[in-house]
């Protein structure tokens, strides 16, 4: 399949700060998730694709054309920025129709497209309200509407799900998937793995300006599984609990927390540990207060991958 977006040895600095470091990447049709913690370089990459920034080294092309200072490229791109910013003194309708003016459509077509886009995001009833009066979810949706109103075949969404309630997230995920079903290309960024998982199985992991890994979700999961999980169990008797697990071969390491009530376990077989823990706790009559997985977050996964 031909790459829709292609980056070759792409680097970008902000003064002395490295934003993106030697990134080579090809993005094909369908949904690609750009996953990384805050400050990883996701937004920088998206700004380079949408021509908002100029590469320091390397190149980025969209359908074979360089993105920087080529307005022709932007005709087919819809961009939804991360920031919750708008021209606040206008209504949702004025915002979407105003931005549609820049595509050379007739007035009738602008109205039709704006009505369609606002309908898609369920904002028809609120289209004449000032954006400053919109809820966070409505603001995210009107941002999405302006990105899709001109029917782009490439959609670049920078953290589109942040700040949305679960229902809002589900609606937007459905919209993005509908967009993909129409044979278009979507690049969506997030720092939350489940959000990306809900959208696509094709993921690019980015951290400290570098592409750490790319592939489908099972591949990423495998990478993650290659590293031991930390599980913290706070209970009435952590030492008695530890004694029960001493002979367990799936446990690699056990330590006690500074509070004297926490047992921290490192294991490759998290599910096996949890199923055994239930039995042990019931059998020994140990009162468990809290079970948490301190490394079960994306940042920790990235740290594993970086340290690999």
């Amino acid at each position: 399949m031909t790459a829709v977006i292609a980056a070759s040895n792409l680097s970008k600095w902000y003064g002395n700060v490295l934003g993106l470091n030697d990134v080579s990447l090809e993005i094909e049709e369908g949904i690609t998730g750009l996953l990384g913690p805050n400050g990883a370089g996701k937004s920088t990459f998206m700004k380079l694709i949408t021509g908002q920034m100029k590469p320091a080294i390397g190149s980025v092309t969209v359908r074979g054309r360089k993105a920087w200072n080529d307005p022709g490229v932007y005709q087919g791109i819809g961009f939804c920025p991360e920031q919750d910013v708008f021209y606040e003194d206008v209504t949702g309708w004025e915002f979407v129709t105003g931005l549609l003016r820049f595509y050379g459509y007739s007035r009738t077509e602008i109205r039709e497209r704006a009505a369609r886009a606002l309908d898609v995001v369920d904002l028809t009833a609120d289209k004449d309200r000032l954006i400053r009066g919109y809820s966070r979810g409505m603001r995210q949706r009107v941002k999405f509407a302006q990105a899709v109103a001109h029917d782009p075949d490439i959609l670049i969404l920078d953290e589109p799900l942040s700040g949305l309630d679960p229902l809002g997230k589900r609606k937007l995920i459905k919209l993005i998937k509908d967009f993909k079903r129409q044979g278009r290309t979507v690049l969506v960024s997030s720092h939350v793995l489940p959000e990306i998982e809900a959208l696509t199985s094709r993921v690019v992991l980015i951290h400290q300006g570098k592409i750490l890994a790319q592939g489908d979700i099972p591949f990423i999961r495998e990478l993650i599984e290659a590293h031991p999980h930390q599980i913290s169990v706070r209970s009435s008797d952590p030492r008695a609990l530890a004694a029960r697990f001493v002979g367990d071969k799936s446990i690699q390491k056990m330590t006690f927390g500074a509070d004297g009530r926490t047992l921290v376990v490192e294991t490759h077989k998290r599910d096996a540990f949890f199923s055994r823990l239930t039995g042990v706790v019931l059998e020994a009559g140990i009162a468990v207060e809290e079970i948490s997985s301190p490394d079960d977050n994306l940042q920790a996964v990235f740290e594993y991958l970086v340290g690999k």
Partner: protein
Amino acid sequence: MTGVSAVRQVFGFFSFLGRKTGKTRAFAILGLIPVALAVVVRIVLHGRSGLMAAVFTEILMVFFLQFYIVILALFYGTSVTAEEVENRTLSYLITRPIPKPAIVLGKSAAYAVLMFAMVGVSLALSYFIMNAARLSDPDLYATFFRYLGVLGLGVLAYTAFFTFLGAVLKRAIIVGMVFGFGWENVIQYFPGSTQKLSIVHYLKSLLPYHPPSVGGGGGGRGVALLLFRLEPTAPLAAILILAVVTAGFLALACWVFRMKEYLYEE
């Protein structure tokens, strides 16, 4: 979309947005100051038209020429690019299929028209209130349009300059204030050709000029006249220079905006 069409669309968008902002309301209210002053002067100096004309000249010079058009152009001109960066709305504009210079030209043109409307209304109200007794005099209208034209040229030249400053500098408003209320106010009173390094010099050159009478006062006044004397440039040359200043700074602003990356402050 062609460049001209893009400029037109940007112009339309920002004409609409510009009218809705609180900044426009505030500056429109500011424009009522000379109107209120005109009402007071008309009541106080009722029947003394010569004195009223002199007062209006002062209003024109001090308020409109050296304050109102400068502060309007400073705030609107620098905001052409700076407000997009500060409000982080630039992404909505530069990801559209329009040339970047069209954004600068369309937006500055929209703001210039808006400023000209504010200046025009303020000038018309104050001028005709103070000259209400001479409304049948055709010279009254000729003078009004001359004043309006001069202020219009001033709006264009200052807007172009401040648009350029806004495109280049992060804190353009501070530098703009130093230029607009420091340099422009001081340099115009220097004798010789130094005063030609200010925009206001060319604007004043287009106004009716009354040379100071030599030896008309005491020694001190004579020195003052020497220091504060306008040495006008010929009207056609003044118009040409103002046009070159406007076109030159707008072209520079477009070039800078096209080449520069604008980063949002975290």
